[in-house]
């Protein structure tokens, strides 16, 4: 059963209903879902865009980036708080709950905060005096802060596993997969990791450890750590490779326009990824906002209309997007997709000691002409969009850097896996 307010529809009529053989429970309400669904896509399928409330102004919030980066789609799943709905694949019978609500049902009285404090709340100087008022404010703030409540149960056991490959490739996007294939074809022992499941990526014959995000690179200890596995069978992997190739790609970031936080405002590339993964199309009038060069092609692929970011006066709506106000009038919208140039993802490279340079889209990993960006317990390399290379040539860039890694390995054949 898909409501009229669903944001998504099947590309092929009737295809979706047949595929939706799973059931997840959202605040105890059963919701149909398909194998390809994430928690977020299943919720969008029944028109749910707001899953929480913001910390300070108590505004309704929901997913934005749809790529596991932004942190406002957090929900409680099977008794554990703060799971990212947008990248969590659904399982049959999964229990999903909203967080950070004052009352379980009915309207949330704290929603008034947004209206009562129409100017900004300066939390450093808010209700400092008198002391009694300050103390009451602190109690209220403490109870409004925090997302979710304690986990229901202690966590399940986790297995540690050590690996010593010749090369560790971090990221199985275009450049990482191309490099992995080239290095393996040359006989090297390569581990390739990706933080998401295979459905987000292009199909590949390469063996990849999917759903195994690297969370820390510790050059001083010579170790790289990643966490993987299914919800109840977790493995903590540590890697001590001779070469590390950072292929972490690029992400969507926030575009400041008034009311850019309303539920139903999404990152345009993330939205495209969600539609591709679930084989769906948008079921509501959608407007892509951004600079023309970036936003217009995305609007075409999303089947949406386009408004230049400079023409946007504000996104309009209450608990979700209803329209946008532009310099030439109001335009109805069920969802708004913000399009900025993808920003290189450089956090892991920086943890590894690499330097970054500002390019207009974000901070790109700085590397030498061969692709190297650091030397320590391993040689650090980087390729693809993480270095500011555009997506269309990222695979070629991965191949080029892989060739340079091969040359480095062959020039020092004694330095195998340790």
């Amino acid at each position, binding site marked *: 059963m898909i409501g009229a307010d669903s944001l998504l529809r099947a590309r092929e009529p009737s295809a979706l209903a047949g595929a939706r053989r799973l059931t997840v429970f959202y605040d105890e309400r059963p919701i149909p879902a398909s194998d390809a669904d994430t928690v977020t896509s299943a919720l969008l399928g029944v028109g749910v865009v707001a899953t929480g409330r913001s910390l300070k102004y108590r505004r309704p919030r929901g997913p934005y980036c749809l790529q596991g980066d932004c942190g406002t789609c957090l929900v409680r799943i099977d008794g554990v708080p703060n799971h990212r709905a947008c990248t969590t694949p659904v399982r049959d019978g999964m229990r999903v709950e909203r967080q950070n609500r004052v009352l379980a049902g009915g309207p949330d009285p704290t929603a008034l905060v947004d209206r009562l404090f129409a100017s900004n709340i300066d939390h450093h100087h808010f209700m400092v005096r008198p002391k009694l008022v300050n103390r009451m404010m602190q109690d209220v703030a403490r109870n409004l802060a925090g997302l979710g409540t304690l986990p229901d149960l202690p966590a399940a056991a986790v297995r540690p596993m050590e690996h010593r490959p010749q090369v560790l490739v971090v990221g199985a996007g275009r450049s990482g997969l191309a490099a992995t294939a080239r290095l393996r074809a040359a006989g090297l022992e390569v581990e390739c990791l990706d933080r998401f499941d295979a459905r987000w990526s292009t199909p590949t014959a390469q063996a990849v450890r999917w759903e195994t995000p690297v969370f*820390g690179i510790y050059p001083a200890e010579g170790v790289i750590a990643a966490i993987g596995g299914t919800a109840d069978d977790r493995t903590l992997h540590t890697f001590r490779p001779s070469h590390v190739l950072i292929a972490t790609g690029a992400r969507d970031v926030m575009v400041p326009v008034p009311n850019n936080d309303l539920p139903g405002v999404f990152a345009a590339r993330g939205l495209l990824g969600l539609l591709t993964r679930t084989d769906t199309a948008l079921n509501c009038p959608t407007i892509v906002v951004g600079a023309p060069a970036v936003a217009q092609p995305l609007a075409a692929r999303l089947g949406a209309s386009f408004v230049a970011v400079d023409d946007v006066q504000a996104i309009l709506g209450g608990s979700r997007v209803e329209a946008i106000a532009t310099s030439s009038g109001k335009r109805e919208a069920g969802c708004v997709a913000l399009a900025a140039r993808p920003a290189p993802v450089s956090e892991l490279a920086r943890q590894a000691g690499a330097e970054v340079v500002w390019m207009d889209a974000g901070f790109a990993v700085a590397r030498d002409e061969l692709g190297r960006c650091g030397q320590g317990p391993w040689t650090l390399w980087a390729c693809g969009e993480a270095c500011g290379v555009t997506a269309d040539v990222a695979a070629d860039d991965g191949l080029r850097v892989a060739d340079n890694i091969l040359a480095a390995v062959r020039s020092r054949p004694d330095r195998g896996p340790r």
Partner: protein
Amino acid sequence: MTQRMFICRCEDVTVAEVDHAIGIGLESVEEIKRYTGLGTGPCQGKECTVALVHLLLDRGRITASAVQPFTARPPAEPVTLAELASLAELTGPAELAAPAELASPAGEAPPSGATP
């Protein structure tokens, strides 16, 4: 709904609040992070850092050639205490390698901003 333009939705930090921080003399990415709370929520700056840099460039507070993001502290992805606990028997010696052993390829010392 009050009209607000957000730069960091995790911590509800608006463009107006960043402008206020600039107004009281804070000028770097690190200072504004600490004063406004921007980048300290669940996303750890993944959503907001680039927008902040654009704003600071626009306000003439920083130069594109010198700007650095705030320190990338692990973990970059969510990992639980129980998952980390599984490593307790495996992790190596207490000593960290001396900083000099971690030089960049050209041999120069890492910038001071890179200390975690």
